[in-house]
């Protein structure tokens, strides 16, 4: 049976890939570019930081390796521990990207867990939505908060599966599933995925996509892992759409019971 094309829509833009990737922790910009190409990702996160004073003129620029005409660039507010820093970062990002207003909002609570500071994230999201930003928000796996961010006007809600950079996989599939079932905006797992099967599980739970960085960048072979993640995402999505068989406590024979030539 031919399926209609399965696409992801975020802020009125249509994507065929459901894997979103970061650009941090790579050996160099060439490896970054190769891994992104292998991942098939169309949305790529970047960070906003101060330029080095007394900069070397020949210093390479990340944006030369991930051109804005080829990818949707998603600036993040990583490293922000209060609403004001996050809002300033988004305003600078919008200016840097010539008015493009899609942002990944994260306001962190502490350095050990990198868990989101939810009150501060709510405060920043409110300001950013009012200023016309299209906010994809990093949050915890709390279904109530996920709904709150949706109602506030965020264009996508991105619960963590496990702490950022931990690679622990989907720690609370029941909450992720509840968030997905309640949602009317895209739900993307952001953070915690370690390997391709984790990405597949997120997609089997019904997530609209997965955003990851460390799982690819810190693999022994990042380009190969990027390719594995692409397939994990596709396999998980197809399995979700196909609808899995019910779980049973006991066996159910795969071959017909009748018509055997032995026995009576």
């Amino acid at each position: 049976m031919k399926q209609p094309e399965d696409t992801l829509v975020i802020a009125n833009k249509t994507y065929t890939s459901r894997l979103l990737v970061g650009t941090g922790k790579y050996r160099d910009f060439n490896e970054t570019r190769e891994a992104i190409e292998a991942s098939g990702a169309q949305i790529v996160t970047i960070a906003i930081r101060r330029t080095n004073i007394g900069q070397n003129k020949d210093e390479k620029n990340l944006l030369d390796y991930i051109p804005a005409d080829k990818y949707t660039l998603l600036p993040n507010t990583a490293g922000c521990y209060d609403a004001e820093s996050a809002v300033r970062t988004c305003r600078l990002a919008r200016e840097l990207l010539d008015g493009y207003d899609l942002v990944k909002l994260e306001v962190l609570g502490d350095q050990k867990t990198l868990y989101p500071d939810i009150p501060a994230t709510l405060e920043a999201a409110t300001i950013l939505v009012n200023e016309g930003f299209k906010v994809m928000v990093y949050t915890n796996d709390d279904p109530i908060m996920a709904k709150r961010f949706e109602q506030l006007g965020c264009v996508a809600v991105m619960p963590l599966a496990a702490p950022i950079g931990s690679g622990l996989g989907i720690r609370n599939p029941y909450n992720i599933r509840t968030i997905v079932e309640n949602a009317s905006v895209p739900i993307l797992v952001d953070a915690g995925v370690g390997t391709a099967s984790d990405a597949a599980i997120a997609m089997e739970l019904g997530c609209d996509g997965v955003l990851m960085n460390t799982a690819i960048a810190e693999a022994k072979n990042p380009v190969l892992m990027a390719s594995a993640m692409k397939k994990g995402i596709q396999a998980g999505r197809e399995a979700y759409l196909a609808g899995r068989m019910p779980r049973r406590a006991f066996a159910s024979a795969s071959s017909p019971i009748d018509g055997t030539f032995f026995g009576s």
Partner: protein
Amino acid sequence: MQVTINGKPTTLSGPVSVTDLLRDMNIEGKVAVEINYAILPRSQFNEYQVSNGDVVEIVHAIGGG
């Protein structure tokens, strides 16, 4: 005159446009600039004169998740 650029106290000989400041600092790639916590649009880089006491932030894109 004294200004703060990317968090560092800096002495400049006098008011200077943002375009000239970026050139003097060897910054060529794409950047965004904030003056005293407000965005300075790129269209005003030639016109705006960085003055005594200004707090200047110059940012660019780097790798991140």
